[in-house]
């Protein structure tokens, strides 16, 4: 297995910069997810690694092998990169059976018949599709096609596996099972994996690390826990899970805490953070982190309940305090018109601007 290094990777289409100066080092055997909304450049980056997109500048290296260094004559064509790739649409060749789909890359590598059959068997066994070897792709369900596509990408034992939203065409239940299974298989084979998705729950569930991307830029690179609990900016806080954003003014920014005046005149204490030049800030807090309180105190405010929504596992309430509107989530059913809520200092994050402004 090998590590993957992207250095200053930039991809431009005319005047449009699809990927801007991407730097990622994926360790050998690591499962890294590129996560972001559509159009953020995640698939573009993935296909550049595969050689199916032309990068503009930067370096792509797998192990010791440089695949791209900005010089067109050194660019390795996709067929010589020896990378496994699973497409969103699976891209199984419709005129070939499952076994023939797997045989094609092996034939191209001039692998003898006996070994070829052995490897096809092994790969189909891995994805539990051995009984379907002689079927044609159209005779398989979506989930089965997805497994065959994975087997085809693994059958020639590439050091690097790229997955482009491979689960997005499956229904919700199957998708949850498939991602667990996929992660187990990846750990077993210890193959370095880049996974592209726009589904944050999926990314949190399967990844060793996540690179959150937006508009061609990487916004944060970290473990799922770091990304969720310590978002680097308001975009990440908004995109991963969901957050309330309070407008405020920085009153005091210390080394371990900050004091902020909110739009309704109240003051709260938060961890320290950066303010905009004019002293304005936004405070992010996730709805499920806001607690009900029985007594007034620091970071506590009285809110009136505008709307109640039953979400199954929790209740969500749209609440307001003066001009501030936000959401809270709690398993408790509230009958009152107004309640006291506490905003825990340690779960707040302070950013200089709102998501979308940066």
């Amino acid at each position, binding site marked *: 297995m090998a590590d993957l290094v992207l250095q200053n990777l930039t991809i431009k289409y005319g005047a449009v910069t699809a990927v801007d100066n991407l730097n990622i080092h994926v360790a050998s055997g690591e499962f890294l997810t590129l996560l972001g909304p559509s159009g953020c450049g995640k698939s573009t980056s993935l296909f550049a690694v595969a050689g199916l997109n032309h990068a503009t500048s930067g370096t792509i290296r797998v192990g010791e092998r440089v695949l791209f260094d900005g010089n067109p004559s050194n660019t390795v064509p996709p*067929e010589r990169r020896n990378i*496994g*790739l699973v497409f969103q649409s699976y*891209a199984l060749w419709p005129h070939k059976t499952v076994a023939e789909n797997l045989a*094609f890359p092996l034939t191209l590598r*001039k692998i003898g018949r006996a070994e070829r059959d052995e490897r096809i068997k092994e790969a189909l066994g891995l994805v539990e599709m051995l009984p379907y070897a002689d079927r044609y792709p159209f005779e398989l369900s979506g989930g089965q096609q997805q497994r065959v596509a994975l087997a085809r990408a693994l059958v020639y*034992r*590439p050091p690097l596996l790229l997955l482009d939203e491979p689960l997005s065409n499956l229904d919700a239940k199957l998708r949850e099972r498939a991602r667990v299974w996929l992660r187990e298989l990846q750990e077993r084979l210890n193959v370095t994996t880049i996974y592209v998705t726009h589904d944050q729950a999926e990314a949190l569930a399967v990844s060793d690390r996540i690179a959150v991307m937006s508009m061609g830029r990487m916004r944060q690179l970290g473990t799922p826990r770091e990304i969720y609990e310590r978002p680097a900016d308001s975009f990440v806080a908004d995109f991963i899970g969901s957050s309330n954003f309070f407008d405020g003014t920085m009153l005091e920014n210390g080394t371990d805490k900050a004091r902020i005046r909110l739009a309704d005149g109240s003051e709260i204490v938060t961890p320290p953070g950066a303010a905009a030049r004019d002293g304005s800030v936004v405070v992010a807090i996730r709805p499920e982190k806001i607690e009900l309180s029985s007594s007034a105190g620091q970071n506590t405010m009285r809110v009136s309940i505008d709307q109640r929504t039953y979400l199954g596992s929790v209740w969500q309430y749209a609440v307001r305090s003066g001009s501030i509107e936000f959401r809270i989530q709690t398993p408790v059913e509230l009958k009152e018109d107004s309640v006291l809520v506490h905003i825990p200092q340690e779960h707040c994050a302070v950013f200089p601007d709102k998501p979308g402004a940066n």
Partner: protein
Amino acid sequence: MTDISHPGAAGRGIDRSQAIYWGVAALTTILVFGPITPIIFQAFLDKPLYDDSAVVTIGNFTRLFSEPGMAGVFFNTLYFGALTMIVAQVFGAVMAVLVGRTNLPGRKWLGEIFIWPLFVSNLVIAFGWFTMYGPSGFITLAAKTYLGGAPWNLYTVTGMGIVAGLSQAPLTYLMCLAAVTKADPLLEDAARSTGAGPFRALFSVTIPMIRPAIIYSAVLNFVVGIEMLAIPLLFGGPSGIQTVTTFLYNAGINAAVRPEYGIVGAAAVILLLVVAFLVWLQGFLMKGAGRFVTVRGKASRPSTLDLGAWRWPAFLFVFAFAFLTIISIFGGIFMRSAVSFLTPLIPFWKVLTTANFEHVLGSANYVRSIVNSVLVATIGAAIGTFFILVIALVARRSDFRHNRALEYIALFPRSLPGIIAGLGFFYAVIWLPGADVIRGTILVLILAFMIRYIPVGFGAIAPALAQVGEELDRGARISGADWWTTVTRIIVPILKPALFSCYALLFIHFFKEYVTAAFLYQPGSEIIGTTMLQLVAQGDNGPVSALATIQVVITAAFVILARRVMGAKIYG
């Protein structure tokens, strides 16, 4: 797991693909511009192309325009083209709406009949019109005898234009039919739900949506009219009416006796410019046609408009059109081939004879022209399909730097009238060193036909290619296949049905072609079309109709075979 770091296909990958890209691009460029270049040179030289003492001049153009009657020739051509277009558009579009969107009785078999003329050449159709509606034609005589007069005269530019228009209506019909039947009936339903009556919905929603098809086929029919040889030759010849094509044909054929290289070149260049402009205009008018695109992936239920009491009058109208302009034309050819003298005044069975067929089949030259036609169509269509396939793959499915330019060049023959392609090849084989070896062989016919019909074949392959998702290529590339392996092992097998359709279309076009061959054939390489041209000139109508019948029968057999056995899609 162990790493296989050196895939087998590696090494020659890039070079092989690049060699194919550049090879195809070079070959296409040479074949497309090869025949045009000598014509342009000739237009600006005062002596024949091969004469080393020739000097550059614009005298050919000044001579051409000062030639008496030349203005009339250009006027005839434009008037004939415009009339062809108008007649074809009116009848074709009306038939398409009636057959495609209403509950007209017999719409299925009427629709089948409407596409017959597309399978045979203008020459056969023109001859059929001559046989039935000519001055001593079967229907003309019948009308004079039983109705007291036949008010038509085909031997005028207007008569010729109407005949050409009626015989081109099936082309408009075909294109509008596709648009009419693919138009989403939901849009019509939406109009109905907002309060429009069924006819109002048809006229306000559906008819405007076939506007692109009407515009597209209008320009196409104008071009067909301008470059048509058969009808002006058959009907204009006797009364001395000339169009640019008959001028080029006569001047070119008689070049040996009266050398007019320069004038021919100049007239050809003007025709080429006019047609190129029209093709450009067509593309320009089609810009923004996207707002009319209603074709969606979902198969929608075909909706029909109830004509009510108008069903039978409409049927009579459509049937009269089919009978008078198609059935009677084919019928006339068949009848003429089986009798010694065709007239409504003598009962048919009294003049029955097999002499026409005996005459044709007893002559080595005529038999050879039939064999050559079959060979050109069979072999030529195979070579053409392969060549066009590779062009389409490089133009649409490769990272070739100049793929757009290649497609542009490959589609340029749309602007190349058959008579100019023929003339150009004629010059080119004389002019290009070494090209003389193929002069007068069927190989030069195959090459010329292939160039002329690249756009036809491309039109059959490109849409099917667009249906094959690009991930399939990408999947193959990432699996270790270079470009050529990817297209041959993955794309081509999936394209098989489209390749059959392309082959069938090329076969039909090659088999019916005559204009392009007019300058290129020599004794030994004659084809049915050129032999018919010769016989028509001699007034040998019996053998002409026998040859035409043989051509129609072979075409029909091929069409049935291609549809049944190969599953080819030919005109719907």
